[in-house]
């Protein structure tokens, strides 16, 4: 085969392959929500994070506004420090609250943000004061049983 036609076909092949990689990255995968160049970092303290994992979504009103960056344990007060990276496009008031919620009945856990009413917005490195921990099923059942037991025993006394 002629040199030029061979080069042409190889060029078409390589371009098609690279284009296929780009289609996979942009159309099939969620590349757009992974890299947030402009973002700020907020730390939320929770008593219990349940099954929350790094890179879980941060949602407000169901819209993904950021991702969980890292999770660590503060050994001074034994609370979990969850670093949230939130897109700069979504400023939140300083008294916003974070809670750990579950998508669907058995879905994965994510962080839900509820906006507050403060005049000032959260800045990079701020700490969220109002948080609600994950619901741990064993604890809920334990409380329920304890409550039931207390109810029946007090009922017997009367």
């Amino acid at each position, binding site marked *: 085969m002629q*040199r030029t036609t*061979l080069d042409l*076909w*190889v060029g078409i092949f390589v371009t*098609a*392959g690279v284009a296929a*990689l780009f289609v996979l990255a942009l*159309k099939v995968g*969620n590349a757009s929500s992974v890299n947030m160049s402009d973002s700020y970092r907020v730390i939320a303290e929770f008593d219990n994070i349940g099954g929350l994992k790094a890179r879980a979504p941060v949602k407000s009103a169901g819209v993904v506004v950021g991702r969980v960056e890292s999770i660590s344990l503060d050994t001074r007060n034994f609370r979990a420090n969850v670093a949230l990276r939130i897109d700069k496009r979504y400023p939140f008031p300083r008294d916003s609250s974070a809670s750990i919620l579950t998508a669907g009945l058995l879905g994965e856990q994510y962080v839900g943000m509820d906006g507050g009413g403060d005049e000032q917005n959260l800045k990079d490195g701020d700490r969220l004061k109002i948080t609600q921990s994950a619901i741990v099923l064993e604890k809920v059942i334990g409380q329920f049983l304890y409550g039931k037991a207390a109810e029946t025993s007090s009922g017997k006394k009367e």
Partner: protein
Amino acid sequence: MLNALSHGFRVVGRRSINAVWRMGSAARFMGLVLLRSGPSLRRFHLTIDELHFAGVLSLIIIIVSGLFVGLVLGLQGYETLKRYGSAEAVGTLVALALVRELGPVVAALLFASRAGSAMTAELGIMKSTEQLSAMEMMAVDPFARVISPMFWGGFLSMPLLAAIFSVMGIFGGYLITVVIIGVDSGAFWSQMQSSVDLRNDIMNGVIKSVVFGAAVTAIALFEGYDAPPTAEGVSHAVTRTVVTSALAVLALDFVLTAFMFTGV
């Protein structure tokens, strides 16, 4: 009795020495291929010839197989998911299955039988007709002139072929479920995009296809170079290439999957 026992031990010993010797010479062969690949990358048109042979001429089989694998996956996935009322998740199913496993693995199997076998046959016949020795006589290094370009051609074309296979498969799944059956197009794409991750799924698939490309090309070239210089020897070497590289791809796929998609 003692004679039979010692004979048995001798057979085991010879087999293991042969296996270790072959492994050693394969490693030495690969070392030479990589070491002498400088000239072949400088004279890049040699590698382009091999890219044309291993990549462009494999396109038809890759595109058609990818399309049909996607069509079948879409149809089967739809039939099963329909029962649970989540037919829209068929996009996720098709994309994850193709990007993570089927794209790299099936493309590598096709590549081994389409391009790998031809590489083995070419090298084996070059050896048996003493073309490689003739090159050495003329002070042309056959590694730099023939073998390294073949290796780089196969190594570079395999990830591209796997990506094209995955894209064609997803297009096939789209064709059957959205265009023909009538699943909602927006739900198909959005469910796919929300569950396919760039780093965990797509990058790992690309890494797999790179590893498979290196493995299949290396096996094909070594079998060709190592083939006994007879017609029968070359034909056996071609058979061994296809069988060994299929087994190697499946075994490597299991190991890579165990590292990539478990844990965390």
